[in-house]
């Protein structure tokens, strides 16, 4: 904090807490929020993992009834919802939070309080969803929540509709925040084509969120209205069209797939060049392929509905667009491989996870192309083949990339290294467990095992049973592996080896500042002259294109003439936390059709908003700073 004088006026003062639990509850620091996202994700990952354990326990043998059908249906639904909305998406958000300001050379995000708001809404949305277990049963209509099954009174799917809408508010607020941050807060000299690939992929992802979330919000509101308030959107009895729900869901749902995978692609694009000690092969191609994937991703949604009530023309059109999207994906894969080509690879744990990502994601991509063969899609659809496919994309892809990112940026956050030995144990068991779990599902699916079945039917035969047993054994391996990771994480936080500021000989701006990152990120905002700015401050290329280190201390030369500037950091605030509590009455009101609760929730949110607006600012308002003029040369005002 640069200023400790907090103006006391209006309805409240501003919190001062710089340490202890209060500092976390009121923080608006993007780094703290990123860390909170990460640890919350770990909790939900444990829950989602436990659910997958229950699923695999039930299916380990044919005709087994450890769980009743009802419980099983709740468990697999919550597994899907948890992993998609409470694990992979917020884990990406953790990276966005911690890294976007650092990698673009900024001190924080554009709207720090909105950022805290996003986190609390996410946390409370997750708690709200899980509270359904105590309130008569969790959602049991699968993560896609197809109407009209989900509008049935017995479906518990009102929790799904309200809960996901709450989580959606979090993502939408975060998306706006990150878009503005990336567009508007880059360090001087950081043009679009000098942005790290991770920043590019973050930008694309957040645009996808921005435009996809309102669609699912509408679908969920309609679902909620049907289930609780007697509306007829998807009720065939009065002429409602259940397929409309499917269209709306997948109009969101397919961009959602890229929302989950693109951040991991960005992370891998950062780690591979560092591990190979040469720049990313075809930066422009990787960036444009990412943007193309994002754009085309909106035009392929009906390929999730090839067996639904859509006709041959639509099936053909969406088959073509689906095949088309494989091209930019292929471009990325080849560029990553050729980033390694000719390098000097160091197989650190993040590098291993990144290489694992390319390899596993390729498998998911290839099985994805087979889905576009529409006539045969009718055989694969809703079978374990599809389950295998999307786990190869989201687990083998997204999670491998994100976990690689955890190992890679752990020193940045803590100033310590994670154990490489345990990291390698984690990687190999993770790879083994993953393939053991999901590899056999390709076969069991083609042999006729449909997904979302509470029991493994014995009539599918012994071969399918064995494949299922293998999958279940794989989960045991994955559990052990996850425990190794957790142990490594905790042990390294407590007693990891000091990493120094730049343990990987990295390329991007976040490593320019000390590790762990100081509160203000950069004592002096760097001026960017190259893509991979930090690398270029350390190395120059000779005539043959070989990199040679520049003399020590050169890194500082760039900014030698920069004057120390006034550092303006966001103030902590109670209001994001206080305001977001209003989502609880609001959500329960939507679930139980209680207008009083909805009203209380809305009033709470509005009061919270007013508190937020009125809250005093330590250094005056944005357009009206109270302290001395800013550094020379900086334009005052927001424009």
């Amino acid at each position, binding site marked *: 904090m640069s200023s400790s004088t907090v103006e006391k006026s209006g309805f409240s003062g501003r919190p001062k807490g710089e340490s202890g639990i209060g500092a976390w509850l009121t923080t608006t620091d993007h780094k703290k929020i990123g860390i909170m996202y990460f640890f919350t994700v770990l909790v939900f990952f444990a829950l989602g993992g436990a659910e997958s354990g229950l699923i695999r326990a039930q299916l380990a043998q044919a005709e087994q009834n450890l769980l009743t059908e009802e419980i099983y249906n709740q468990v697999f639904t919550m597994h899907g919802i948890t992993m998609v909305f409470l694990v992979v998406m917020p884990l990406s958000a953790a990276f966005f939070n911690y890294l976007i300001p650092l990698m673009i050379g900024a001190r924080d995000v554009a709207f720090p309080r909105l950022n805290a708001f996003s986190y609390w809404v996410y946390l409370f949305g997750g708690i709200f969803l899980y509270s359904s277990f105590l309130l008569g049963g969790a959602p049991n209509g699968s993560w896609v929540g197809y109407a009209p099954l989900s509008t049935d009174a017995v479906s518990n799917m009102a929790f799904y509709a309200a809960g996901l809408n709450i989580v959606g508010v979090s993502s939408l607020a975060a998306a706006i925040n990150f878009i503005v941050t990336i567009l508007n807060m880059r360090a001087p000299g950081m043009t679009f084509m000098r942005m790290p690939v991770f920043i590019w992929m973050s930008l694309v992802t957040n645009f996808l969120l921005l435009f996809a979330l309102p669609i699912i919000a509408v679908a969920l509101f309609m679902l909620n209205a049907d289930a609780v308030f007697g509306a007829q959107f998807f009720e065939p009895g009065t002429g409602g069209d259940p397929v409309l729900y499917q269209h709306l869901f997948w109009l969101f749902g397919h961009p959602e797939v890229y929302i989950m995978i693109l951040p991991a692609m960005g992370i891998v694009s950062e780690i591979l060049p560092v591990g190979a000690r040469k720049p990313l092969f075809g930066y422009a191609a990787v960036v444009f392929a990412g943007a193309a994937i994002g754009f085309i991703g909106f035009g392929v949604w009906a390929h999730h509905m090839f067996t639904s009530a859509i006709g041959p023309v639509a099936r053909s059109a969406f088959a073509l667009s689906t095949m088309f999207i494989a091209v930019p994906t292929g471009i990325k894969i080849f560029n990553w491989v050729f980033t390694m080509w000719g390098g000097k690879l160091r197989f650190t744990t993040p590098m291993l996870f990144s290489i694992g990502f390319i390899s596993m994601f390729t498998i998911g991509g290839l099985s994805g192309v087979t889905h576009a063969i529409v*006539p045969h899609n009718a055989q694969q659809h809703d079978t374990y083949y599809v389950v295998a496919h999307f786990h190869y994309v989201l687990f083998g892809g997204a999670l491998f990339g994100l976990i690689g990112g955890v190992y890679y940026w752990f020193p940045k956050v803590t100033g310590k290294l994670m154990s490489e030995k345990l990291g390698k144990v984690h990687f190999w068991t993770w790879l083994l467990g993953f393939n053991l779990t999901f590899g056999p599902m390709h076969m069991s699916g083609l042999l006729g095992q449909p997904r979302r079945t509470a029991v493994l039917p014995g009539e599918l035969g012994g071969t399918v049973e064995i494949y299922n047993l293998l999958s279940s054994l794989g989960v045991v391996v994955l559990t052990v592996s996850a425990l190794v990771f957790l142990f490594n994480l905790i042990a390294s936080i407590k007693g990891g080896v000091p990493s120094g500021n730049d343990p990987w000989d990295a390329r991007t701006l976040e490593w320019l500042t000390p590790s762990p990152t100081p509160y203000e990120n950069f004592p002096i905002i760097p001026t960017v002259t190259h893509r991979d700015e930090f690398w270029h401050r350390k190395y120059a290329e000779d005539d043959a294109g070989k990199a040679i280190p520049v003399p020590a201390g050169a890194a500082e030369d760039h900014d030698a003439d920069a004057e120390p500037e006034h550092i303006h950091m966001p103030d902590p605030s109670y209001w994001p936390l206080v305001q977001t509590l209003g989502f609880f009455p609001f959500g329960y009101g939507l679930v139980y059709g209680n207008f009083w609760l909805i009203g209380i929730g809305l009033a709470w949110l509005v009061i919270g908003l007013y508190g937020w607006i009125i809250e005093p600012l330590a250094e005056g308002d944005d357009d009206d700073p109270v302290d001395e003029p800013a550094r020379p040369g900086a334009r005052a005002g927001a424009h």
Partner: protein
Amino acid sequence: MRETRQTRAGSRRRTRTVTGIVVLASLLLAACSGEQNALDPAGPFAQGPHDLIVPVAIIAAVVFVLVQGLIIYSVIRFRTRKDDDGSLPVQVHGNTRLEIVWTVIPAVILAVIAVPTVQGIFEQMDDPGGDDVLAVEVIGHRWWFEYYYPDYDIYTANEMAIPTDTPVRLEMTAADLARSPEQGVVHSFWIPRLAGKQDLVPGQTTFLNMQADEPGRYLGQCAEYCGLSHVNMRARVEAMEPADFDTWVEQQSTPAEVPEDGTLEADGRELYNDLDGRQACASCHQVWEDEGDARAAGQGPDLTHLLSREEFAGAIHDMTEENLRDWLEDPNSMKPMQYEVNGIGMPDLDLSEEELDALVAYLLTLDPES
């Protein structure tokens, strides 16, 4: 973890498991034939898609080997060696020619695959036409399939009889409760060896073509999640020689026989129609007894020739006296349903021992063979 608990389930399974792992390698190679196996087509509408996917799978396998080989080669070839001098590699930023190559080649491959795919879509969906096409209407209920043969005015459930070498055109929808689309949910009809799946949407009609080359029993099940007992919604196709099919049609077109007065079976029939204030079987299930009456279907499966089917309750239980008795005694323990909540499924009728005896005896008379 949790898996270890299940090894208690039975030693028979344990031995099977051990042998299973031993023979795993051979399993991975051999395409094994099962009755619900999508890799083993038994009719033209399953064969077409299969012929399409095999070359695609081969191309995918080649690409797989190529990419993974490239990754493994790079990893081995470009690892940092022990005697490395610590200098940095040549800083290559990209290569436009290579970028073009790996943009164009996949695009061309995909374009080649796209042509037969689009052809296949239309072939798969077009009405096969011709006089010999058998029409069957399929209605997905929670949680059983109902079949109606409009040409013969026959209602049956779970098991669909079809003649071999004859294209079958399924006209499908979903409904619950008094056959109205109200409360219907989306199902999907799937007999992997005969055709891919197609969803059944309440309030709409979808179509599926199917044909069996050989007589036999083909297994399938509902493939679109439809709630509580989704897993207990199986489907079977009984393909028979055309002559046998004609016999089947004849049997099904004969009304059920009414048991003689004074017998246990006759008492059962009484109870069937009137259960003393409890909901009578006849209010949901039809038994067609008189040629003069129009055949009609109720909320539950048609029972006129119940014993002509091998299984009941969504084709999850064998049609045995014991199973029928258990079913009537406590249907929810045989198959989870939610009659008490929203009227979906079979109610628990709270039957006495005597009533059970009589009803089961009556049900066992509903056999066209007798």
